[in-house]
């Protein structure tokens, strides 16, 4: 199946990603940020200074103890920072050695066994459920699973290149995902050669067009709209390949093929680093002069962070623009009681997938009208899906944050 997304916006991107493979790079530090697991009450399973192997559990969800987060690399725990409400704020590991936990694969070909294995090995958090874009409950049953093997964000690595050499793992991972659902597994990819063979319950869907053609929200709204009673899950292609690796070798592989790009880099780079890699250390020798912001994620939807997020496959360096000192009178004139209204131009209409009434949805979100936003399809969306809308309204309102607030309201209801 081929779906041409005629909406979307061409984004200005300076500099092409380099040809050639992803360069394996060691990092001095790995960080696991609590921001990736928002909403999770963490129960720590390690202490500072303890030695861990790749795949050994670090912490788990207090309410759903099956969901564990495991170490992406062997080494020892350097620091654990606890934030408000005793939630984890940051956990750092100094990587050393090549130890890896081995997992028992005996039951991995049954649905229950596969779930248990993914939860043990720390691959369960790779799945996210729509509505709400959260880690799914350990016993939840999705009506479809989306494998996102296309990325249209600016400077995103090409999935075909990133899967080079691990195509078998990817195919094995996709096969395994079909055990988790009674419904379809959709492999959403770009217009290249098929990444996996189409089978009874595995369909390959090609998407073409500008961003947001490569976002799961677009795919889900188009192919299988999620509802409260019929949630769908999505997972990115590198995590699907990691699942395949786990099933083949019995060890978890948390390496990521990422791009490190953006206007703040002398040259864009392709790197193979562990999840949670220290982006400051990776980018520092290659930055252009001047103050910078290092983002985990793309320049469009990334967030400022020192460590690569679990859900990001790229990092960006952009110039830090400090607010200018303006004349007090001019500053007073331009300061408003409310953020400036967004103008529903033709560009705004192109920011969400073809099935979304973009302007009414953004209006509902910007006043926090949860019920109306749900009617307009916000249950299909995650924060990433609204980054383009924020871009196309001049960055005045962060619609991703508004969406999260609305989703939290709906989830609590």
């Amino acid at each position, binding site marked *: 199946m081929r779906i041409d997304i005629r909406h979307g916006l061409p984004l200005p991107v300076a500099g092409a990603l380099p040809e050639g493979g992803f360069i394996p790079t060691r990092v001095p530090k790995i960080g696991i940020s609590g921001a990736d697991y928002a909403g999770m009450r963490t129960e720590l399973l390690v202490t500072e200074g303890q030695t861990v192997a790749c795949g050994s559990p670090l912490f788990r969800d207090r309410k759903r103890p099956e969901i564990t987060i495991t170490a992406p690399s062997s080494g020892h725990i350097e620091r654990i920072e606890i934030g408000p409400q005793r939630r984890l704020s940051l956990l750092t590991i100094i990587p050393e050695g090549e130890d890896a936990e081995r997992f028992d694969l005996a039951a991995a070909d049954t649905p229950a066994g596969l779930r248990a294995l993914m939860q043990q090995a720390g691959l369960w958090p790779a799945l996210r459920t729509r509505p709400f874009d959260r880690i799914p409950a350990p016993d939840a049953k999705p009506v479809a699973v989306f494998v996102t093997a296309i990325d249209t964000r600016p400077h995103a690595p090409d999935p075909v290149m990133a899967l080079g050499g691990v195509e078998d793992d990817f195919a094995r991972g996709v096969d395994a995902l079909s055990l988790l659902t009674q419904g379809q597994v959709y492999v959403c990819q770009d217009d290249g050669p098929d990444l996996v063979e189409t089978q009874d319950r595995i369909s390959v869907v090609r998407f073409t067009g500008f961003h947001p053609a490569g976002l799961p929200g677009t795919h889900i709204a188009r192919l299988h709209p999620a509802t409260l009673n019929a949630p769908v899950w999505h997972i990115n292609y590198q995590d699907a390949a990691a699942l395949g690796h786990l099933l083949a070798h019995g060890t978890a592989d948390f390496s990521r093929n990422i791009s490190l790009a953006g206007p703040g880099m002398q040259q864009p780079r392709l790197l193979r680093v562990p999840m949670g890699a220290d982006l400051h250390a990776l980018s520092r020798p290659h930055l252009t002069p001047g103050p910078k912001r290092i983002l985990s994620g793309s320049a469009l939807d990334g967030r400022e962070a020192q460590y690569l997020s679990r859900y990001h496959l790229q990092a960006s360096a952009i110039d830090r623009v400090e607010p200018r000192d303006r004349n007090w009178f001019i500053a007073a004139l331009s300061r408003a009681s409310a953020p400036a209204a967004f103008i529903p131009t033709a560009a705004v209409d192109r920011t969400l997938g073809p099935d979304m*009434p973009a302007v009414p949805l953004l209006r509902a979100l910007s006043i926090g009208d949860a019920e109306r936003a749900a009617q307009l399809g916000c249950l299909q969306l995650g924060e990433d899906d609204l980054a383009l809308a924020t871009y196309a309204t001049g*960055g005045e309102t962060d619609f991703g944050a508004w969406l999260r607030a609305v989703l939290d309201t709906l989830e609590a209801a």
Partner: protein
Amino acid sequence: MRGIWHRDTVSWIIVAAMLPAAVAASLDLGLATMQRFGVALAVIGFWQGVFLFTRAQPLSPIALVTAIAVAILASGATEMWQIVLAASFGTVIGEQIFGGWGRNVVNAGVVTLAFLYFAFPEVLHSGTSPLVAVAAGLAALLLLVTGVLSWRIAVAAPVGLVLATLALGQDPAAPFLEGSLVLGLVFLIGDPVTSASTRMGRLAYGALAGALVAIFGWADAGIGAPQAVVFAALLASLFAPLLDAAAIAVATRKWRGGHG
């Protein structure tokens, strides 16, 4: 990373697009146009200042667009106190009390002009030359390329206009030679804020507005007179929310009933 479509940038783009048409029209209508423009701008600026200090609503360059539209489309022998009255009504009731440009339901220029036409019907207003129509057409191209004007409105409005003109047994090419009419189509009916905001809604809105222009023009005011396009814009923007509601009902039928 942020795009160019901030509220202020969009209004500057519209101002830039309007300048050639403004120059062409003031060549056409003479020095009085500049006078009307100056008075309208001063009045709108005053009210923006009042709302800046009382309600913290920032100033917007859209005042220039409203003032130019009023100067060109109120082309008759309008007294300046009439402009003061109408522009005050238009900018306060049409725009500022809703929270400023971007939150309004009807275009401030349209309200101002409708006020002038209704309150002072004895003043006769004339249209402008095809040169203004050409300048407004070029402006439409600029607005389409910069992603401000929706192509759906830009296509549907002329189609609606031509079809309704044919239905009334008139020459379908005639409206496109009228400067005021084309200017109104681009800047009043095509205003992104007060037009419909869904894809199907925009098509329906454009067609409705175009047809209303033809009906008002041929059946009442005369196709060259600016009244036709102003009243069509007023009526069409009042219908826009209804058209949007219908379009949304169709577009979201897939997941309606799931929640709420």
